């Protein structure tokens, strides 16, 4: 989730993004949006199982992955970002990562078939980890989801920014960004699973 005070892009990145508004770029973006709807579910589910906490369980990982897909489908490249404070720069979202991520899922699956003779989705946890390891090589901190080079990093970053992930980490029903009665706000957030 973005930090409101610190816009995503530098001035240099913004200039680079101006290229995004050529007619060819508009066509490419439209293709990108369509492509987002075509992420390979089975491979993406398996990526989710490899990078998300097992504690979520199968019943928890599925909805996270579907939520990530919905988020990606709603992504708009070139949209104006929240303005930085005290700066005149207007910055915009980067082009959709969907085409890149779709290609990565296809490559992961092809790699699994070549190396292990099975689709990525059918591999055991250890083999999935081997194939995914290079995706994390250069990653030092969790980026904003859309800035993730690899879809596995994007999925993990997206989950980690959700209010439910935050609740899980703090072990309490914080309900970030939810409305709550003002009178209840002085109370300590209730532990997950109800009052202890």
């Amino acid at each position, binding site marked *: 989730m973005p930090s409101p005070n610190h816009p995503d892009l530098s001035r240099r990145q913004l200039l680079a993004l101006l290229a995004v508004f050529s007619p060819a770029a508009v066509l490419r973006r439209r293709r990108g949006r369509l492509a987002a709807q075509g992420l390979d579910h089975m491979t993406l589910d398996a990526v989710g199982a490899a990078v998300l906490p097992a504690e979520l369980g199968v019943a928890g990982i599925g909805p996270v992955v579907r939520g990530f897909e919905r988020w990606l489908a709603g992504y*708009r490249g070139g949209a*104006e970002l*929240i303005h930085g404070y*005290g700066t005149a720069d207007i910055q915009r979202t980067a082009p959709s990562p969907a085409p890149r991520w779709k290609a990565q899922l296809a490559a992961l699956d092809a790699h699994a078939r070549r190396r292990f003779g099975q689709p990525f989705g059918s591999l055991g946890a250890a083999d999935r980890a081997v194939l995914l390891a290079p995706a994390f090589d250069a*990653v030092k901190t969790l980026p904003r989801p859309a800035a993730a080079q690899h879809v596995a990093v994007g999925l993990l970053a997206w989950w980690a920014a959700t209010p439910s992930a935050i609740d899980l980490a703090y072990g309490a029903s914080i309900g970030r960004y939810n409305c709550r009665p*003002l009178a209840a706000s002085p109370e300590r957030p209730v532990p997950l699973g109800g009052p202890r």
Partner: protein
Amino acid sequence: MTRVIEADVCIIGSGITAAMVAEKLTDERQCSVVVVEAGDEFDPLTARPALRRRFLDYGESPWRNDHIAGTEVAGQQSRSMVVGGLAMHWGGVTPRWSPEDFRIKSLYGIHEDWPIAYDDLDPFYQEAEERLGIAGEQGPPDLDPRGKPFPQPALPLTWGLSQLKRWAADAGIATWSQPSAKNAVPWRGRPACCRNDTCFPICPIGAKYSPDFTWNALRHSGRVQLLSRTVVRRLDAAAGSDRIERAQAVSRDHPGEPIEFRARTFVVAAGYLWSPHLLLLSRSARHPNGMANRSGLVGKYLCGHRNVSAYVSVPFALYPGTNEQHSLVTKQFMRHRTGGPRYLRHDLRIWESDVGQEPRIRGDGGKLLLGDDLLADWRRRAATGTARVRSYYDVIPDRSSDLTLDGARRTPWGDPAPRLAWRDAPVSKELRGASEQHLRELFEHLARAGNGRVLSTGTDSFQDHPAGGCRMGADPAQSVTDSWGRSHDHENLFIVGAPTCVSASSANGTLTFAALSLRSASAIGRVFPARAT
């Protein structure tokens, strides 16, 4: 052909200060008011939940069309030219300044006193608080004097802020709930805050005041005419006179058809940036330096405050996210005390934060953390909390801290653009290092007293809550307006709010800008008959 629009009062700009002037004038006086705003209309309240969602999910700006391409200037500028101005996406934090702010020359031998005292402004602070709907907690009366109680009870502290209040008390610092333009109770048709924590940039329910509520009400009742997408380019005086006769404007939709506003009184309410700019643009043979500028001080003494901040670990859990935008505040340091640098006045605010507890993909030794490992590491670090602390400190402006006309840039309608440069007076320049060091030491002291650790510190070089450029004063040679905002040079020209400030205190300024504007409105209204109540 020129379109002519006549009114008793013509207000230029539609930000929060303009909204205060228009509301008070039309509440109390029989006068027609026309408001001219360069920017577009805002999205209605009903559109805001969806716009907020896109902000949360993608970081997109929830304020569409809130700036005008081509109006970026050299120097610090926050973008928002729209009906409602900058306060459409302000944080709604509304402390009063302190009595010392208005008397720093008398008390400390520094800079200048204002031509008014805190007590002169107190009733207008109160009025602004009532019109905006301020929820606040009375601080210690000697530090935080007020003639009447806050109109609304304080916003309650979250559980985390209550812990931090105790933590600050361990370091000898008494704090209280930051006054805010966010409803603690339903107010003037707007609901109470529900703590969904996106006050900045967008409150989706209208619990935070923004000027659109005032404009909607005034327009709905036919009390003002507001023209958006209309830019005033210059003010003209009547031939051979200092009386302002008309404002010349251009419609952004029909640039070929000039508009002329004729009024008995003109009110420049275009903020710290565009108010002095408009006056400087309004040059003529009789007024070669622009309007209201016989002193040569239009655009001079731009002021603001800088800040030093830190993240401090605390040895207890917090739950950031229940309302990270609300803070504790103290005015304990807004009175200069001996023992630190020669002159230093500052506020101190404390928030809960998740800095230092964010999920990590690399452990301390660089080990990759995925899945359960990532969650376990996150949980371990979330077991103790982080406080964010920040102090604004008073910066004394130099005369050369100024807005000038930029020879290299033009506005979209062909006028020279403004150029901004903030410059400290020698006393502030000299004390800057020691002041910032003193604040870092204060944060260290807080950390130590509460068994915590300073994780990082930062200093913003820009000046927040910018003001000045048309400062008020009793001496026409040393100021642009009198204490009511009336230009010394033109008896029917008022400049209101931020530009009239002599100095900028060490706390958020907008409540003061609103109070000053209401005080100006009381003077503007004197020439019009009272409205029957």
